[in-house]
């Protein structure tokens, strides 16, 4: 009872200070909303209206029809016409067009014979995400209306499960929960202890009967609440703005989030036992943040990563949480289905907190 009393005293003090720190308080609400608008609207893997340059050496009704069809997909937008292959390459080199379309002079004959490609698509490989678009355009049945060649039946019937409209926001917003929590949780906690060390409060606190556990857990408790508030905020706004569904159980989601929040806080706590100043703490938090965002599968699939990056990704709590939250929110998975990433999260939490506790001494040396 006494043990809990001190812990709650620290938690209450921390909450009171947080409530008085308007900038931090604003960030708790502001950062998730801002990030969500940024990521939700700006990141879009469905590429549209890519500037294209056309070199039409055929100049027939059919070639014009072909260009019209391509434009009608809204994937490309013809911005320039070139008169020679050299001009087309110059335009692409300047960046004025990302896609070049070369229609050969004997277009109609090649289409009838069907043994050689009639159209060449040049794609700017210096930009990410454009090759897929070329693949898509390339397999387009351009001849349907020309009525000339056989209608090919596609070999595979492709359906995108759990995100039938293939909207990027649906993939991004749930994963955004973990990304934003990583940012706020790690930065806030790593700063929370170091700030008291810098201001001299810690020297007084550690000369009282308060234990390390009371001090560390008491400091973390308010941030757990903040983390849950941020989670709710992201899911509610994500649902309202981007139509992100909530397929699984809310209880599973919040339990998963709770474990992840604790893991992120433990990481922040560990950082705070190493950093001497708030600036150092911030830098260290940042060092853990970038790999989290890049390697956790938030934007890029693991399958494309080299093995060592996959190993690093396995250590990051965000990787496992992204798996859990996408599973629960989009696929309707239960925590039981997600037990492996969940266990990995718990393991990270236990190890990190033990490390922080072992490093934190009620001493100055």
């Amino acid at each position: 009872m006494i043990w809990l009393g001190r812990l709650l005293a620290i938690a209450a003090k921390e909450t009171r200070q947080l409530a008085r720190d308007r900038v931090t308080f604003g960030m708790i609400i502001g950062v998730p909303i801002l990030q969500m608008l940024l990521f939700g609207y700006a990141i879009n893997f469905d590429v549209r209206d890519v500037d294209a340059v056309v070199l039409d050496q055929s100049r027939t009704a059919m070639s014009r029809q072909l260009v019209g069809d391509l434009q009608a997909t809204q994937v490309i937008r013809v911005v320039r016409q070139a008169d020679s292959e050299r001009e087309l390459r110059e335009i692409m080199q300047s960046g004025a067009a990302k896609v070049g379309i070369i229609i050969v002079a004997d277009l109609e004959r090649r289409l009838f014979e069907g043994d050689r490609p009639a159209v060449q698509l040049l794609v700017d490989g210096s930009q990410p995400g454009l090759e897929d678009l070329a693949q898509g355009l390339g397999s387009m049945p351009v001849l349907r209306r020309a009525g000339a060649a056989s209608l090919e039946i596609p070999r595979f019937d492709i359906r995108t499960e759990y995100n039938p409209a293939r909207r990027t926001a649906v993939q991004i917003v749930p994963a955004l929960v973990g990304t934003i929590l990583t940012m706020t949780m790690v930065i806030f906690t790593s700063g929370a202890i170091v700030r008291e060390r810098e201001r001299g409060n810690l020297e007084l606190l550690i000369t009282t009967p308060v234990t390390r556990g009371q001090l560390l857990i008491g400091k973390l408790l308010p941030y757990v609440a903040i983390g849950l508030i941020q989670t709710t905020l992201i899911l509610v706004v994500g649902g309202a703005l981007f139509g992100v569904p909530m397929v699984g159980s809310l209880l599973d989601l919040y339990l998963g989030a709770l474990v992840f929040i604790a893991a992120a806080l433990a990481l922040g706590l560990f950082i705070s036992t190493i950093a001497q100043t708030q600036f150092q703490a911030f830098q260290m938090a940042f060092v853990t943040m970038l790999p989290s965002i890049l390697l956790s599968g938030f934007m890029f699939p693991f399958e494309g990563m080299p093995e060592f990056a996959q190993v690093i990704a396995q250590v990051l709590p965000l990787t496992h949480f992204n798996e859990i939250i996408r599973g629960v929110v989009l696929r309707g998975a239960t925590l039981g289905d997600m037990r492996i990433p969940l266990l990995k999260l718990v393991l990270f939490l236990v190890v990190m907190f033990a490390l922080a506790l072992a490093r934190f001494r009620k001493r100055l040396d």
Partner: protein
Amino acid sequence: MTLAISARSLTRHFGAVIAVDGIDLDVPRAQIYGFLGPNGSGKSTTIRMLCGLLVPTRGTATVLGHSVPREAETVRRKLGYMTQRFSLWDDLTVTENLDFMCRIYSLDRATRRLRTEDRIRTYDLGSFAGRRAGTLSGGQRQRLALAAATLHDPELLLLDEPTSAVDPQNRRDFWESLFALVAHGTTILVSTHYMDEAERCHRLAILDRGRIAAEGEPKQLARDIDAIVIEIECADLTAVRRALAGVPAVRSMAQLGRRLHVLMRRDATDPEGELRALLAAHCAEASIERVGATLEDVFVAATRLRTEPTAAGARAA
């Protein structure tokens, strides 16, 4: 007479720096014990070792009957510590800070209210009890810090330069509160670099470069000073100082307004005569008189004079 603190050969290194160098310390209960010394003399390091914040490199310390740092947690329940820097929370009010510290010391709700009210009254914090600590003046903060350090009625108070940011009137009031605490049986260890504060202590240790240069009651220290104190009054003290500089029998000089205190070797046979002869050419009308040592003289004799043989030795080598 039981001891509140007892330390033997207490030593602390920071890398190559020896901050505290084999201190022996005996602090009696229910007294004010002072650490007098310049910055860097090891006052804070010693206090921090006594409350378990730093582990001694060598030596032992017993605080309130418990070995430190081994039983530091037990000691911490009976100990009040006032850090050199204000270390309560700037963004909490006076009352909130006090209530928080009460809860840290696990006082129950009723006791918390009683103690907080009592300390606010005792240390005259009532007129700004609702203000945030960050907006208080130096004297107000220091009273708040003392109030917070005494909430759990500690047997021992460790005060690390408590008055360094406080004006003279507040310093006087502060010392009155310390005597009130001692009257109730509290032991106080206080570090300072103010002579007038050192003079108020029951006992005193003069610290110099990590060692205790002199120890005892202030009056006794003045009597036992290892020098003869001569006071010179003269219109042109600058000329006097110039004339006496480098004279072997003169160990140090300190100006106090229009008077000059000259510390001379104890073995000098006729120090007044010697000085009079030296000054005849510079200040014929000078009044030269042997006086009792002030604490300042004791401090100078204990700290600066120890430097000279070493410095000379270093030069010779």
